[in-house]
């Protein structure tokens, strides 16, 4: 019986031990690159960006999302086009408990100030919980008995998910760690709209008068174009 290969190597069919290559995400180029196991290990030890542990990656992504929400909450200037788009999407002028009246932008900013971000890939929250504040609660009975993490695992295209009419947003950390700040703001705004008015993407698209060709992304693009340019 042959001796096991050293750490970081594997035995080829030829019988020789050869180095293992590890695909890592390069945060500077935004591409995967192959590095040797040794290099990868040393990067892990240095806690460099390429070797960020899963826990660090999650914390980093959650901080990116929170900073983005803070940007939305505190941004002083918003265009009239944005105000109109938010009104079209369904955020109406509303009276606040304080007696003040909030326009769509103000409601968005208030929601951005109270949002809570969670890691969708590990959340054990039942999917049905996201629907409990909706206008037709009876439909929540038709939600599959899955957790939020189940949905993120089964649907790789899901980058973020929101509670209808609540203040929680679940994100996919690996996604938030690779997108630019402008797009992140548009994604967070999109999710905040779900929080504020409790409508699903199909309703939002209808309010905007658009047909979803690329799914959720089309609404985010509209918000990016009208509000963040």
């Amino acid at each position, binding site marked *: 019986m042959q001796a096991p290969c050293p750490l970081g190597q594997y035995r080829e069919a030829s019988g020789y031990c050869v180095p293992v290559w590890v695909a890592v995400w390069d945060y500077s180029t935004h591409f995967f690159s192959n590095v040797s196991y040794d290099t990868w290990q040393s990067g892990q030890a240095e806690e460099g960006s390429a070797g960020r542990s899963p826990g660090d990656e999650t914390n980093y992504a959650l901080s990116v999302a929170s900073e983005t929400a803070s940007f939305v909450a505190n941004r002083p200037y918003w265009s009239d086009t944005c105000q109109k788009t938010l009104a079209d999407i369904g955020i109406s002028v509303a009276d606040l408990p304080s007696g003040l009246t909030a326009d769509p932008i103000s409601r968005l900013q208030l929601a951005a100030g109270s949002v809570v971000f969670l890691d969708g890939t590990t959340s054990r929250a039942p999917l049905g919980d996201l*629907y409990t504040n909706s*206008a037709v609660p*009876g439909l929540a*009975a038709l939600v599959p008995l899955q957790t939020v993490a189940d949905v993120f695992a*089964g649907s790789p295209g899901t980058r973020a998910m929101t509670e209808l009419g609540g203040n929680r947003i679940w994100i996919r950390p690996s996604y938030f760690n690779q997108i630019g700040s402008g797009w992140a703001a548009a994604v967070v705004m999109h999710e905040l709209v*779900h929080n504020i008015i409790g409508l*699903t993407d199909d309703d939002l*698209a209808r309010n905007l008068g658009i047909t979803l060709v690329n799914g*959720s992304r089309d609404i985010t693009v509209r918000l990016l174009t009208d509000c963040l340019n």
Partner: protein
Amino acid sequence: MVRMVLLLLGASVSLLSQVPLDEAGKEGVLQVLIVDSFGKPLQGTFAVSVREVVNGVPGKEVRIAPKVTLGYGTYTLTVRGSPAYPVDKKITIDRRYQLVVVPLFLAPIESPWEGNTVRGRLPAGSRDRRCTYVRLLSALAETEYAEAAAMESGDFVFQNIKPGRYILVTLGDVGICDVVATDVLPKHEQELTLP
């Protein structure tokens, strides 16, 4: 003179036969019953509206109560209630009382919906008679249906079927073999229960 009267009479009869009955001013009661995809009546906050269609062009959207009196004519009825897919339905008010059943299907918060897989096996009678074409039709919504051909073994698969009550129809050279009611449950994968 008699000839003139007969001519006028003939012309008026001809004119009457060409012009549809004047239904202007006639009204009918429309009742909208909103149910889930299993047929269970739903409670909640809905936005129900109609747009009268005149000469093929929909008019202004008007919010209505689930029970309302409308003038005779054609309308686009829209029912929205989050988290359901919005529903548009063309209706014609031409009776004094009519019921419209509007089933609502659960929509995902984030689109697109990553669909489910629904498997099944042909009922024995259909297998025996080689009825291998399968249609799965929502029992409530005419827009929700799917078609598949079963394999030699009798197994078939559907994808992206929204949860709800369905009618499964099997067809072959002999025509329709089986018509069976079945439920697609809110699960990512499932096996249909068939006889």
